[in-house]
């Protein structure tokens, strides 16, 4: 990655003597040592050896990553930010940051600032004897060179040369530059020595462009020393390399140099030939520039258009993605619930069938025979005098009757409860005589009341009518009376009273039995209080009564005091509403 990263060192060589300026452009890359240092210092690069692949969050990483990507402005912003942070005291990082900053400034041709950065870098580098420090000398040398301070440049380059590492790819450039310094300083021996070494290195690396430059500069060296033969030889070599290297600028320089040289030699035909070629290239460069400019413009316009289009597309894309995602989520939810519901539906249907079967069993196979049993036991208990029963027989028949009655109520409750919850219960409200309804309910309890020696006092005006459904009202009353009897002590009293007020009638069933603590009482949890015979009920009955009375448009209230008794108040409408 480093190898293609930098293309930014320009070295000028001006041949004063023949008034020709040879522009010498040569790539200056990171030195191996500097690369190593970055790798060692940057945690991101250390993790991922194929460094600079991605722009990571780490600012330090970004500084050299962006630089390597030629985004020097962004890189510079980050570098400045990092360097202005005085907390950043890691010398290596500071060294690297300063170096890169120097390189950025160098590319911007802000030589004084660049120089400052490199000097700082060198100062820091010296502190811990950075292995890549000598490379910074070379860069510093280049700056002096660019500023035409050749003696200073030569001095710095010599410092570099004193500790330079062999086989470094930048060496030939630095040697070349050093040579050029001496050339400018007119120290031809040293110039020749360095330029020739650079030439050799270029040969070694088969760097055609480098060879072209070296040749031309050596030619200039010789030419300045009036060694024309050698100079021409090198100029022609340079021309050859320049042609091979396809670098128009170098080629142009070579041709111009040769044209001037031949002109000076008075070989005008050759000079003219070179000059013409030079002009041709000049034109082609101009053309190339123009074309490149147009192309650049085109490219820019296209890029802008593309960007706008991309932006719009991106927006649209995001919009569609969001919509699609939402739809997908919705769909998956729906299908999930649909499947779930369908599954449940099947189960429910099956359950319903089973339940219906159970119902017919309950209604026909259980309800009727239990009632018949109850009715028959009732008849035995109440048959007139003739065959008086023994006390023992009476008791057991009475108990049987009680059992049959309880079972009958339980069946009825279950049936009503289930039908009520399905809203399938017969419901037909009409004007009903309350005393008559109460008498019908009491009828089934006569044997029990007698057996337990209870006193049942019913005081309901025969002219009181309620607007209710007879069946559900009777079920409710049955449950309430059943409870009152169950929780009454032997020889207890049960009072049933009715009072009317405006359009409502309140029926009170008052017992003097066990009672219960109303604080521990909730609609969902009745029962649990054992009755006077020690058994507990399911609590379904009272709950059902409550619901059925409410369905009739009435209200159902229970008040109780432990060991004093319970009062159930049922309020019903007296008129159709």
């Amino acid at each position: 990655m480093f190898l293609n990263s930098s293309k930014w060192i320009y070295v000028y060589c001006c041949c004063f003597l023949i008034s020709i300026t040879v522009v010498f452009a040569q790539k200056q890359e990171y030195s191996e040592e500097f690369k190593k240092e970055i790798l060692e210092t940057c945690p991101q690069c250390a993790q991922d050896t194929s460094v600079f692949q991605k722009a990571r969050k780490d600012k330090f990483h970004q500084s050299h990553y962006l630089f390597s990507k030629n985004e020097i402005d962004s890189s510079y912003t980050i570098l400045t930010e990092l360097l202005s942070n005085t907390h950043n005291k890691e010398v290596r990082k500071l060294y690297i940051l300063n170096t890169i900053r120097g390189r950025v400034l160098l590319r911007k041709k802000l030589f004084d600032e660049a120089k400052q950065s490199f000097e700082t870098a060198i100062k820091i580098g010296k502190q811990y004897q950075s292995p890549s420090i000598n490379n910074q000398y070379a860069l510093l040398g280049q700056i002096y060179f660019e500023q035409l301070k050749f003696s200073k440049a030569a001095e710095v380059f010599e410092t570099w040369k004193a500790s330079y590492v062999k086989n470094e790819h930048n060496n030939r450039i630095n040697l070349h530059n050093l040579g050029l310094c001496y050339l400018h300083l007119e120290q031809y021996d040293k110039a020749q020595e360095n330029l020739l070494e650079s030439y050799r290195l270029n040969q070694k690396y088969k760097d055609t462009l480098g060879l072209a430059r070296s040749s031309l500069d050596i030619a200039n060296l010789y030419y300045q020393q009036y060694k024309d033969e050698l100079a021409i030889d090198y100029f022609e070599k340079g021309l050859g390399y320049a042609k091979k290297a396809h670098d128009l600028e170098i080629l142009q320089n070579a041709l111009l140099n040769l044209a001037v040289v031949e002109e000076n030699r008075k070989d005008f035909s050759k000079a003219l030939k070179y000059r013409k070629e030079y002009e041709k290239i000049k034109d082609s460069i101009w053309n190339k520039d123009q074309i490149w400019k147009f192309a650049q413009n085109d490219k820019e316009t296209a890029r802008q258009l593309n960007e706008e289009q991309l932006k719009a597309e991106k927006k649209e894309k995001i919009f569609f993605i969001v919509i699609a995602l939402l739809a997908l989520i919705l769909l998956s939810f729906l299908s999930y619930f649909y499947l779930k519901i369908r599954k449940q539906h099947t189960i429910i249907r099956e359950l319903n069938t089973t339940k219906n079967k159970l119902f017919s069993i309950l209604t026909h196979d259980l309800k009727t025979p239990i009632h018949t049993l109850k009715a028959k036991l009732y008849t035995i208990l109440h048959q007139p005098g003739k065959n008086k029963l023994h006390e023992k027989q009476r008791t057991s028949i009475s108990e049987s009757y009680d059992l049959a009655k309880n079972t009958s109520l339980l069946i009825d409750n279950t049936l009503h409860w289930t039908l009520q919850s399905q809203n399938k219960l017969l419901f037909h409200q009409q004007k009903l005589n309350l005393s008559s309804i109460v008498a019908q309910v009491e009828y089934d309890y006569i044997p029990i009341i007698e057996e337990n020696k209870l006193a049942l006092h019913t005081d309901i005006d025969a002219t009181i009518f309620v607007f209710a459904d007879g069946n559900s009202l009777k079920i409710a009353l049955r449950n309430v009376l059943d409870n009152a009897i169950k929780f009454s002590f032997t020889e207890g009293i049960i009072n049933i009273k009715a009072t009317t007020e405006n359009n409502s009638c309140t029926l009170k069933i008052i017992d003097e039995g066990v009672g219960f603590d109303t604080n521990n009482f909730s609609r969902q949890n009745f029962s649990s209080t054992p009755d006077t015979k020690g058994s507990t009920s399911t609590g379904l009955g009272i709950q059902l009564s409550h619901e059925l009375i409410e369905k009739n448009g009435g209200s159902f209230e229970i008040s109780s005091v432990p060991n004093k008794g319970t009062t159930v108040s049922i309020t019903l409408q007296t008129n159709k509403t």
Partner: protein
Amino acid sequence: MTTKIKVLIFEDRAEDALILKETLSQQHIEIAGIASSYTEGIALLNSVDFDIALLDIFVKGKPEGIQFANEIEDDKPFIFITSSIEATVFEEAKDTNPHNYLIKPYNPLELLFAIELAIEKSAAQEGAFSQKIPVHHNDAIFIKKNKALVKIDLKNINYISVDGQYCNMYTDEQPFLLHTSLTQLIKEFPETQFIRANRNLIVNTDKIKIVYPDDNLIVLTNGEKVSLSRRYKAAFFKNYRIFK
């Protein structure tokens, strides 16, 4: 002469029919006939006289009771009996306008109450029995006496006289106390059959044996005498031609 209420039963289950029969007889109600199928029912309808019909909705597993209900004369009350309390069953039965429903199992009081309510409803006099108000329906009066429901055909009434705020109804057998006013009864009864003899009495014209206008006296077929006041004499004779 007082008559028992006559009931027509439509029920295929012998056991249930027996329970009905026993319960009804305890309540001094007469069985006009028991049909256990639709055809039997139709035959009974044509041959016997009844006051009310008790129909089991499901006969032999089919809702024949509903079908049978459609054949009953409009002025005759009927009750549907069923062991089901599911609303769907009643949806079908509703169109026949039954006068009441009775849910099996039932106790004697419930049966009696259902019958009473049906009669009250067919006479549009709901709540009458519990208030001892006579129910007038199909040329008869239904009243509750000693917890039993009795029927008195209008033709069997001799006369009705005021007793305090109520009335006493006299037949050949026994008087009945009616918790209603004489004025109310006159309004309800057929105009020509019952005529005011004096301020406190209406008499059944069919039961008049001899009238002594000069003595202001009416002698009834059973020998009882009621006075004919001068005030009502003119109105009384308006309906009769007098041979002197």
